[in-house]
Each structure stands twice: as structure tokens, then as C-alpha cells.
């Protein structure tokens, strides 16, 4: 892959253009990573592709090897893997609460202690998620309780 960087003080903002013979999965992945930096996530719903603002995402969940993106209004699907998203979205305040769930701290409404040191998380839209024992400790640490 050839990378060229043009520094031009006259350009008002940073512009990235991708030139390729065809749109391969690798190129799509690259574009997706760039979009995450721009606070956008490429998602699909009913065959249509959307650019979702990361701030709108309540949580992400893997189910049967598929990754679902939950917002207040709809559920989307993304081709990205959970571990990739975890790395890419960490800077946006996302963190794991179980093996299959990533969520954004700012969208948590309340927390409640659950059995076996787990935490029941109520999201702003009223949905409830469970932080498993292992990840509940991480959440407590993140909140400065450990």
C-alpha cells in the first residue's frame, strides 16, 4: 500500500482520499478506522449503509458472531469485530462490561449492585445490561471505587 502525505497550509481542514483499484474488505476496514477517528461508525440496516455518529451509540453487543449497534432509536449491524471496536472506540469512552458487550459511560442512567459482584446497568433508554463479575471490577475501578 502506498501512502502519500501532502502538507498544504492553504487547506482549511485535513482531507483524506483513498485511491484503489477496487473496494476490498481491507480498504473498507481502513475507511472504517478513519471514520472512527472522525467520530463516525459505518453500520448497516436492512441492506443500507449508514454513517452513525459515535456519540449516539448506547452500546454494542455481539450475538452469534454478529455485532449489533444499539442507539436510542434503532439497532444496526456492523462488520467490525468486537476487539477491533474496543480498541477503536476506547478513546470515545467505550468499555467492556461483559465478553459480548461494549458500552459508553455517558449513556448510563444508573447502576445497581447485583448478585455475585455483578452490576446491573440501566441505560438512558431504560434498557438493562449486566456487567459480569470480571468486568464489574473494571467498572468499579473506572469509577474510582477501588
Amino acid at each position: 500500500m502506498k501512502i502519500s502525505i501532502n502538507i498544504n497550509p492553504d487547506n482549511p481542514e485535513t482531507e483524506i482520499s483513498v485511491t484503489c483499484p477496487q473496494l476490498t474488505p481491507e480498504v473498507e476496514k481502513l475507511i472504517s478506522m478513519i471514520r472512527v477517528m472522525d467520530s463516525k461508525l459505518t453500520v448497516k440496516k436492512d441492506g443500507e449503509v449508514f454513517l452513525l455518529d459515535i456519540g449516539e451509540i448506547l452500546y454494542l453487543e455481539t450475538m452469534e458472531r454478529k455485532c449489533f449497534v444499539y442507539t436510542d432509536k434503532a439497532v444496526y449491524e456492523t462488520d467490525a469485530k468486537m476487539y477491533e471496536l474496543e480498541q477503536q472506540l476506547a478513546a470515545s469512552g467505550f468499555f467492556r462490561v461483559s465478553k459480548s458487550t461494549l458500552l459508553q459511560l455517558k449513556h448510563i442512567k444508573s447502576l445497581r449492585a447485583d448478585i455475585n459482584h455483578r452490576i446491573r446497568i440501566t441505560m438512558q433508554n431504560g434498557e438493562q445490561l449486566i456487567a459480569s463479575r470480571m468486568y464489574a471490577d473494571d467498572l468499579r475501578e473506572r469509577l474510582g471505587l477501588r
Partner: protein
Amino acid sequence: MGKKNSIIDNKSATDFLNCTCLAFTMQVVVATIVMFTSSATVSAEQSKLSSIYETPGYLSKSTLLQFLIVSLLTALFRHIFFSGKIVKVPSIALRVTLMFTCEIAMLAVVIWTCGWFHSVSVAGWAGFVCGALPCLIAGIYLAFKSECKENEEMNAALKKKQEEEKQP
């Protein structure tokens, strides 16, 4: 949107076994202490818990088997109320209350059927109630207090963190 409730950790068989072993060991230790602190003859007269090979003052095989059954039932109640698979009440304090109530009821049935002390013994039942009731009340109180305290701490920390993140 309703898939999140399926994310519940499996309670391992090791936890169940540990709970059974712990309950069994505690029963044997307590019963043995009672046997040794009271005279063999008296304990044999007052309870069927004594006598191994017809020797008063020791725990019999059938008693140990009864303890094992009680331990298994105790572990089963813990699994029912604390695994999150069967009883799905969110409040920990309520789960503790239900579990203790069931365990005390189970113990009363076992005492009655296995004759751990004579079923007409007022002193025996008074002792049982005096032992069980404070445990029940203390357990519920501590569970309720610790749940409230932890919830308050977590939510205060959450709000603080969210405020911090809002600031540029």
C-alpha cells in the same frame, strides 16, 4: 432490543460443590462441639444426633448423611436464589430474605422428620427459633444496608465521572 437479559454468567459446579462442602463441614463441627460440651448420656437422651455404632457421644453415619442432605439443599437454595437463572428478583436483600426463610423452613422440616431433638421439646424449638431469628434479621439488615450503600456509592461515582467527561 431484548437480548441483553441473556447475558448472565453460568454458575459453575465448583461453586455448588464448595457451598455444599462448607455447609457440611460447619454442621459437623457445630454438632461435634455440642456433643463434646454436653455429656454423652444427656445428648443421647435428648437427640438422635448422637451414637455411632450405638456409642453415645459421637455422630452416627445416618446423621452425617442427614447433614449431607441438608448441605445439598442449602447449596440448592443458594443456586435458586443467587444464580440469577431461576429467581430473577433484582434486589439482593429480597433474595437473602427468601433464601434464609426457605433454609430455616427446610431445617425445621429436617429437625422434625429426623428427630434432631424431640418434636415436642419446647426448649429445643425455642432454641432453634432463638438461633435462627437473629441470623435471619441480621442477614436481611446487613444485606439491605450494604446494597443501599453500594448503590449510592456507585451512582454518586457515576454522576461524578459523567460530569468530568462532559468538561472539555
